[in-house]
């Protein structure tokens, strides 16, 4: 029967080609608009490190101004002061801890013909690479002993390694940055967490840094932060010492904790630390520490842009209008065939048979719309890329993965069947007698 109904459906579609095309186009446009934005939202709100996101916690302490919260209504600052970051790092109460800030270095290539160039850099600690499970092309990160011993070591991104050493394995070789010679311990393979969760205070969807070098070195060499620096209290004296001992927040601490017990213990430790600082005259605000895991932190920072959410709402309404359009047209089409339906019913077709016939026809239109919708989604994403192309990260937002393609197909079929349900139900309700009279 299905094949027969499919054939009837095709015939009926062919009988009104313009109208059928309009219905397919409406569904396709609706799905296309909706899925374009859903895809962007999906990538932006994706989990950048799914297998570890519940083990990694971002630490916030409220060291801010007694008269004014760092962020309304009562949020602690999003970063830490050097004093607190260093104290928590040295206490070492978590399984692993990463303290970092964003900066820049100038690489001076050995080859004098190559001009010096600036690279984006992350000043960080040894645990960074294991904690965030970074892929290595060559070598590995540095050791904790390098942090403590202030060793001049560096991890390069793949692109920088290729620029400096072509295809060779550079582990053990030297790189000169700002006059100091660093030893390469490893080269990262292509790695781009999206969002760039470990530093959303600066650029949620930015590229990863080009070089990574020890925090202890950058403090000793007085390397300024290139990231956000926020201060509520005047530093008093001028100079680097005064700055690092100030109440300015400019670095981020991530810790690795397994399970509720460890988390609670760490919270207790943070509270005790803040109490001790209060006793020393710091932390004028009430106790307000936060320990968010990766996804909680992404939500707290609202990494998904408002614009995307507005567009998502509009896109859902858009799909709704397209479906209303399809329902109206299908209804008109089916009601126009009341005569046929009445006749079939009079000849003994059950309501079920009528229902099957028209739902198959509507389903065909829906599937056509869905397939065209995936094409529209790809077009839509290309359009977005064209519009926002100057932002490098857009490249990563406009990729369709299989989950999204499957979602588009399911959404299309559900939409089409949903749109077909009412008109088909109405068709089933047609009384044989009422229609036969008018024939």
């Amino acid at each position, binding site marked *: 029967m299905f094949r027969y109904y499919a054939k009837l459906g095709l015939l009926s579609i062919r009988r009104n080609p313009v109208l059928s095309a309009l219905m397919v186009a409406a569904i396709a446009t609706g799905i296309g608009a909706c899925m374009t934005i859903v895809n962007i939202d999906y990538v932006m709100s994706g989990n950048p490190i799914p297998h570890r996101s519940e083990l990694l916690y971002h630490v916030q302490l409220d060291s801010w101004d007694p008269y004014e919260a760092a962020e309304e209504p009562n949020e602690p600052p999003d970063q830490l002061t050097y004093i607190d970051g260093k104290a928590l790092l040295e206490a070492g109460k978590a399984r692993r801890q990463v303290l970092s800030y964003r900066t820049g270095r100038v690489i*001076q290539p050995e080859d004098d013909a190559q001009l010096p160039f600036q690279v984006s850099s992350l000043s960080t600690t040894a645990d960074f690479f294991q904690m965030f499970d970074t892929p290595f092309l060559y070598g590995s990160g540095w050791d904790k002993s390098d942090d403590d011993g202030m060793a001049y070591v560096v991890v390069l991104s793949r692109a920088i390694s290729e620029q400096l050493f072509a295809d060779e394995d550079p582990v053990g070789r030297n790189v000169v940055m700002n006059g100091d010679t660093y030893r390469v311990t490893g080269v990262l393979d292509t790695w781009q967490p999206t969002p760039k969760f470990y530093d959303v205070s600066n650029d949620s969807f930015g590229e990863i840094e080009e070089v990574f070098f020890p925090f202890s070195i950058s403090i000793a060499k007085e390397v300024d932060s290139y990231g956000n620096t926020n201060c509520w209290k005047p530093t008093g004296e001028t100079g680097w010492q005064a700055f690092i001992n100030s109440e300015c927040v400019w670095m981020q601490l991530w810790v690795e904790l397994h399970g509720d017990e460890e988390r609670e213990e760490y919270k207790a430790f943070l509270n005790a630390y803040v109490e001790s600082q209060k006793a020393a005259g710091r932390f004028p605000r009430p106790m307000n520490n936060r320990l968010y895991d990766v996804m909680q932190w992404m939500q707290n920072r609202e990494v998904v842009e408002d614009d995307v959410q507005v*567009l998502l709402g509009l896109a859902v309404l858009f799909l709704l209008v397209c479906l209303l359009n399809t329902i*109206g047209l299908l209804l008109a089409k089916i009601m126009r065939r009341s005569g046929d339906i009445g006749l079939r019913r009079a000849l003994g077709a059950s309501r079920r048979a009528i229902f099957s016939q028209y739902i198959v026809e509507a389903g065909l239109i829906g599937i056509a719309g869905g397939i065209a919708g995936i094409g529209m989604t790809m077009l839509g994403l290309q359009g977005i890329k064209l519009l926002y192309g*100057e932002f490098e990260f857009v490249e990563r937002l406009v990729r369709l993965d299989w989950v999204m393609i499957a979602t588009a197909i399911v959404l299309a079929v559900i939409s089409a069947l949903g749109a077909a349900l009412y008109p088909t139900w109405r068709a089933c309700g047609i009384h044989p007698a009422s229609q036969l009279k008018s024939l």
Partner: protein
Amino acid sequence: MEIGPIWRAMLRNKTSYLLIALQIAFTMAIMVNAIAIIQERSRMMARPSGVDEDNIFYLSSIGFAPDFNPRAAIEQDLDALRKFPGVANAIVTNTVPLQGGGWSQGLRREPGDDKENIGVAVYFVDEQGIDTFGVNLTGGRNFTPTEILWFDSEGGGPRWPDKTILTQAMAEALFPESPQDVVGKTVYIENDLPVTVIGIIERMQAAWKSWSKVENAMLVPMKRLESAVRYVIRTQPGYRDEVMPQVEKMLAESNTGRIIRSMKTMTETRQRSYLEDSAMIKLLIFVVSILTAITGLGIVGLASFSVARRSKQIGTRRALGATRTAILRYFMLENFIISSVGVIAGAIIAVGLNIWMVQAFDLTPIAWYVIPLAMLVLWLVGQLAVFGPAHRATMVSPAVATRAV
């Protein structure tokens, strides 16, 4: 006149009409809110930055050599830049309007950390700052060369000079009761360091376009001794694109202990800064146009069906003496009624959606006139869409009535 019979006829076939009305309603809700967002973004993009955008470009100089001397480099660079053919003026500063990164500080009318603190964007300039940025001095005076301090982050010396020039907006924010009389007044920076206002400039935006107080800015007569600095250069009108590569080359070659990077014009900066907004505007215009087209085509489709289904009735009416105009009027009027129900429902949904968006995303509420405007547009779309099928209806011959019955 004919509304009664048309309305009663419509009630016999409620669902199809309801579907069109709903479609019109949601289309209108989207249209109104899209227009509200477009208006807001356009207003934002139209705000002047206050500086001479057409002729300004800027670049960063980053010293890296261990023997790099920031002060000597700045003095030498400024001297070379100001003498460079095609360059009107140049300064060393920290940022430019719309750039995205800048320095903010708070100013108070009275000293003390418990007194009201008004946020302000800081631009470090010398006596050439006003001329280089091309801002208008509207009151008081400019800095003199002797008032410009060097700030050395390692040495002692004053943290802030004791003189400043404010934008008109900042002056009004600090002294709302006498905004015209701010020159000569003293304000406090970093809680309790006194600063005297010596001049007022008409307008200069901060570096952050979304900041609610984007016109609060202050000029500080200071050159900061840092290894990474930014030069802002204003060229003679029309010479910008020609001068830029020459300047870059000259600076790079004059001192090899540093690199020159991030050279950009103000025009590029404005484009980049408002890229999201202009993209959003284009997206919304596209969405609304497509949506209106789909709704219009839906109306065409349904009206065609309706005409085909009722060709017998139309024939009968024609046979009973109805003119072609009367038939046309019937379908046009019918569509007008549906559209009216749709746009009234649409107005309600639009306002509801807008209230939600204002709360959730801090949008400005819609201007009242957008609603009647959208109503008018959708009425017109409906009438245009129905005209074709209605015109076809007038072609139904009266003879149809006699044939099939």
